[in-house]
């Protein structure tokens, strides 16, 4: 279902948010997105606009296609055999599935944080430095050191690891590893960060830390987060999209989705009756 611009304006108006220019020109515009795995459809006909410098939460029961949709946005589905993506996804008005689009360049601008912390089995420093190095974003030595430090600082990890940058990253705790993965993602200065259930493997304290971080990061990045926890979606996101059985059922401002959903399925899910 396409949600026309006027409707979005209405949401904004009702919640009292000022419509900003970024809303008029969404960071990511997806329309009629179909994805199938070996012919078996996973998501159908999804239309969704992602606003810049905000946090958009994708919620829904398991197997509803929210992760599939997220992975379309930086073409991570390309590496899955038998996965077919149809439809139109635009990043700043540019079709990311057009011929000639280089996934290396795309993923340089659309970074990703995965469900399970997956640091490289190298040192903490190497984990963060790898991205800037392969993209040639920082020189060697001091320049790279500064990039690593600022990335770790923005990920709120610097104070904990500054004395052991050469220690193996796999020796960090789960929450620290996930923040390291966030530092690794922001070290290449992407426009968009995709987060696939980044807290599902973490305890509540580490989760709170990551959520704080997400809130700070939205100043500079557009964040899309898949989450199973409705409380988390309510806490961190400004916009929420509810997926069910491969369809985008409803999307809009988080406040509206949680307090005044239009679709009965959304209401059933957010009140805990299904899912």
């Amino acid at each position, binding site marked *: 279902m396409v949600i026309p611009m006027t409707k979005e304006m209405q949401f904004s108006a009702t919640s009292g948010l000022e419509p900003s220019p970024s809303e008029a020109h969404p960071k990511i515009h997806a329309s009629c997105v179909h994805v199938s795995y070996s012919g078996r459809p996973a998501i159908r006909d999804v239309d969704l606009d992602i606003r810049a410098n905000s946090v958009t939460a994708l919620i829904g029961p398991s197997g509803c296609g929210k992760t599939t949709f997220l992975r379309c946005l930086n073409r991570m589905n390309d*590496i899955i055999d038998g996965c077919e993506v149809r439809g139109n996804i635009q990043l700043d008005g540019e079709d990311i599935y057009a011929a000639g689009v280089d*996934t290396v360049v795309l993923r340089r601008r659309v*970074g990703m944080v*995965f469900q*399970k912390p*997956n640091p490289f089995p190298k040192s903490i420093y190497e984990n963060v430095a*790898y991205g800037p190095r*392969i993209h040639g974003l920082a020189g060697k030595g001091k320049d790279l050191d500064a990039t690593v430090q600022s990335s770790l600082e923005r990920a709120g990890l610097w104070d904990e690891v500054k004395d052991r940058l050469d220690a*193996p990253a796999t020796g960090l705790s789960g929450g620290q590893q996930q923040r390291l993965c966030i530092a690794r993602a922001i070290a290449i200065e992407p426009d968009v960060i995709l987060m696939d259930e980044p807290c599902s493997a973490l305890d509540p304290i580490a989760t709170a830390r990551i959520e704080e971080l997400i809130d700070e990061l939205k100043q500079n990045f557009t964040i899309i987060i898949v989450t199973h926890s409705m409380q988390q979606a309510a806490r961190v996101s400004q916009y929420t999209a509810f997926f069910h059985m491969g369809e985008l059922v409803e999307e809009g401002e988080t406040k509206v989705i949680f307090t005044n959903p239009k679709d009965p399925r959304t209401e059933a899910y957010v009140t805990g009756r299904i899912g």
Partner: protein
Amino acid sequence: MTDQAYPPNLVTDAVPGVRKRHGKEIRFRLLGLSAILASLGFLVFFVASIVITGYGAFVKTVVLVDVDLSQEALGLEAGYTSTDLEDVSYRTVVRGAIRGMFADVSGRSARRELTGLLGAGAEFELKDIVLKNPELVGSQQSFWMTASDDFDLFNKGGAKEETATQLTPQQKDWYRGLLRDGRVKTAFNADFLTASDSRDPELAGVWGAIKGSFFALGICLLLSFTVGVLAAIYLEEFAPKNRWTSFLEVNINNLAAVPSITYGLLGLAIFLGIFGLPRSASLVGGMVLALMTLPTIIISSRVALQAVPPSIREAALGIGASHIQAVFHHVVPLALPGMLTGTIIGMARALGETAPLLMIGMVAFIADAPSSVLDPASALPVQVYLWADSPERAFAEKTAGAILVLLAFLVLMNLAAVILRKRFEKRW
């Protein structure tokens, strides 16, 4: 809670059938234990019998011989040069020396029996000593010289009457006389490790075979590791998964099970027949062994690549690494220990392989150690095969000795595999 008729306790017999279940477990444990003990027993028996037989190859019997190195005895005139020293007939000198020790022996056959006490290499031993120490000329000296193989066997066998029937009763008497005089002892046989093959067992050594094996394995490693690992990386990380690649996979698995002699025939037909490479060369041996090892390396490398968690690939791709960067910066380093282990196991198998080498002519008698990969060479397992076939009894212990050397190299290689795996292993 219930009214069931179980006795109110927790002992085994409280529930029918539990004793039977425990019995099954005990019987299975005993079976497993006896299987392990049986295989250990076989291993101990195998190694012990080889060590007992092969020990003799590493020691040799030496006889203290008084040698007259006067100018007259050597047949040198005054003002001789070092070239003259080389031209001396040391065979005559050695024969004279041993006859001098048994002055009472006369007659042609008795004298031949007497010279048969010393090995065929005695004259060369003496020559080496004199050429290295020319100042000894003109003096009387006593040297420990290598005894002949029959004499050696008789001595190492404890001088029992029933051993070494090759010796005549007269020779046995001489042996006892020399032993009484303290002129017989056993010494470490360095020749076994530094000499190459010989028709005379007391002169034969494994150095040529070790060198041949080393050259062949070097060629084999170079070819099979590079080709095998690249093939595995391509198949696992880059090739599309379709009917062709699964067909390829099935065939690679089949190749791993092909009898090794078939690779020898292939090498004979292609490397020797079509390309005209030299026969018996370790280059061809290495190429044939590489063909044989390739499937093993490809399979083990693919398994090692599959064992790398996909999250590492996703992490690399997710920050914009290209496919090849993700593979070579992250996946391959993690798979390397597994690849190396597979390679070393393949190499160890190649080291012990005889059949394909027979086909390409590495089974010839070669008395010189090869100096390049194009020289005719032997290999350790082939040397074992050759010596096991020799009629001289003294080659029996040489055979076992060569097996010991081969086993030592195999143990070293497996040890290297374990160490490499431990060193490169990273946890994720």
